[in-house]
């Protein structure tokens, strides 16, 4: 009976075995058979072979678009790190006298800019700086967000204070904060990271707090606490899987946002000094050539790299968040 479904086959097998049993004649002492005592049987539950990370990874790798962008992203990140270690890699700020504004060619793969710097090494160095800014901002956002959010949700005395503080500071647009902080402090990579980190974690903390409040007193956590599970274990095992999906999404979106902010801050003149190549600096200096068809590669090459990086983060982040959500794990 190959066409039968699993359930039907079970029913079939059961009724056959019942029929076989009934067809025999039993003596009264054969009615019951004492089972031997087996201590391990008590431990055997209805165990399914479910692993959170296994299911997450399986769901993620079923999405070809996401895998494509992941490969692209990992390739780019690895390349920006190893690029300066490659043989013949010139220092990014080296000036080649006389080789100004050269279009992409065999010697200068991405051409040179108006003062004769090699755009290929400038762009990879810039991507490295921009990615560093993005990763730092995202890391601070998630770490601060989780720490403050868990405290906010778990410690009831803090709730009022933190909620009021949140209500005040959430009303300020982040761009304004970044502008005013970079205006006051000396421009540099660390200033920029500090300015972007200052308020970005508020939303994450708020989200974590809401999740903690919702999940904290659910029955399974209550049961867990009654059985004497320490608080950190409850947080790690019962709470974190709920947060993983949204935290990775936030992190994946914070990185392109920080990179975009860097471009904007550089444009209004509060960015990193020109000696440090960043994507913002490169785009900003390329912008003067926007309407010169022979020279606008100086704008479009950094724009292209930046777009690839941000789109990859966005797509990978969203796909991973979907995959990491336990609701989307089918069996």
């Amino acid at each position: 009976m190959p066409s039968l479904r699993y359930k039907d086959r079970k029913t079939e097998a059961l009724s056959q075995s019942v029929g076989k049993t009934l067809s025999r004649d039993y003596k009264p002492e054969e009615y019951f058979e004492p089972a031997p005592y087996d201590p391990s049987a008590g431990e055997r539950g209805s165990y399914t072979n479910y692993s959170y990370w296994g299911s997450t990874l399986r769901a993620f790798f079923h999405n070809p678009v996401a895998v494509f962008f992941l490969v692209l992203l990992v390739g780019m990140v690895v390349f920006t790190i190893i690029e300066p270690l490659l043989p013949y890699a010139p220092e990014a700020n080296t000036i080649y006298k006389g080789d100004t504004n050269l279009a992409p060619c065999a010697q200068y793969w991405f051409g040179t800019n108006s003062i004769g710097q090699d755009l290929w090494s400038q762009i990879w160095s810039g991507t490295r700086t921009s990615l560093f800014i993005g990763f730092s901002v995202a890391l601070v956002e998630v770490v601060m967000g989780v720490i403050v959010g868990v405290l906010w949700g778990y410690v009831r005395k803090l709730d009022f204070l933190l909620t009021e503080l949140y209500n005040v500071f959430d009303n300020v647009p982040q761009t304004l904060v970044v502008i005013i902080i970079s205006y006051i402090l000396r421009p540099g990579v660390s200033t920029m990271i500090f300015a972007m980190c200052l308020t970005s974690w508020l939303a994450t903390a708020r989200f974590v707090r809401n999740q903690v409040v919702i999940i904290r007193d659910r029955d399974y956590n209550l049961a867990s606490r009654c059985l004497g599970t320490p608080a950190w274990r409850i947080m790690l095992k019962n709470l974190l899987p709920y947060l993983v999906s949204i935290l990775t999404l936030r992190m994946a979106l914070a990185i392109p946002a920080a990179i975009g902010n860097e471009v904007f801050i550089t444009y209004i003149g509060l960015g990193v000094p020109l000696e440090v190549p960043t994507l913002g600096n490169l785009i900003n200096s390329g912008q003067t050539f926007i309407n010169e068809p022979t020279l606008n590669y100086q704008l479009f090459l950094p724009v292209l790299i930046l777009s690839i990086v941000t789109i990859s983060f966005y797509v990978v982040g969203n796909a991973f968040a979907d995959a990491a959500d336990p609701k989307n794990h089918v069996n």
Partner: protein
Amino acid sequence: MAKYILKRLLRSLLTLFIIITIVFSLLRLMPVEGYFQNYEKMTSTQVELGLQKLGLDQPLPVQLLNFYKGLLQGDLGVSNKYHRNVPVLEIIAEKIPVSMSIGLTSLCIALAVGLPLGILMARSTRTRLKIGDKLGTAFVVLIQAVPAAIYYLVIQFFGTSVLHMPLRVSMDQPVTLILPVLSLALGNIAYYAMWLRRYMVDESNKDYVRLARAKGVPAADISRKHIFRNAFVPLVQFIPTSVILTLMGSLYVESLYSIPGMGGLLVTVIQRQDNTVVQALVLFYAAISILGLLVGDILMALVDPRITFGKKGGAR
């Protein structure tokens, strides 16, 4: 209801007060060059005299108090570098209508394009190929993933070198405003389309929609009269965010196209380190975004009767 609005208003005022205090105090940390046009050539006594004239030699609380007094009388100080000794309020006043008209136009366009796009995408999820939904989603992903700073530049490039639009905007010729308004609207179009689609898809799985479908109501009527109306209500909560998006976008767009508005002004005065104007503009932007959030919350309370006022509900 009135109590809720009053409470919300008071909270906004408190927020504004805290922000003004913080921004004012932070800006006092700046070096004093920002208050003089030719700092390099001045002697130290001249600098001291100048500071005295501006009231900057006094302790911070006194300065703050003076600033609040001035603020209540509509006096935000004078510009030091941008237009020397011209009251800041006068400089800003002539820029406000320009920024307002561009911002509001782009918001209207965002609603007029974003909502139909969302409806189209939601309706397309019920067709077999879902072409509309896929194209729309690709557009939304592209706009959301690429930083605004980048697609503004790409729009400027295509507008000026492919369509031969002028690079600079003149307020007399509305045609030249197309590019900046479009740039500003694009982010909000994607935003509205994405959320409306999500809400409409959620709504269309509900029982009353199934009933309507079973009764044989035409699909267009269902999506317009039943689904859209219910899905539109929660969209109100995105008004503040889109106001802030437009505000912050205008900083960049206005100076890209040399529009004589507040955004362009802020970029200019930041580059020239004119402290008083920077301070006034930052506070102005903060005030507008707080106002936007306030209006959004009140609208939300008006349209959705399920929101309880002031009561703490739920888990605790």
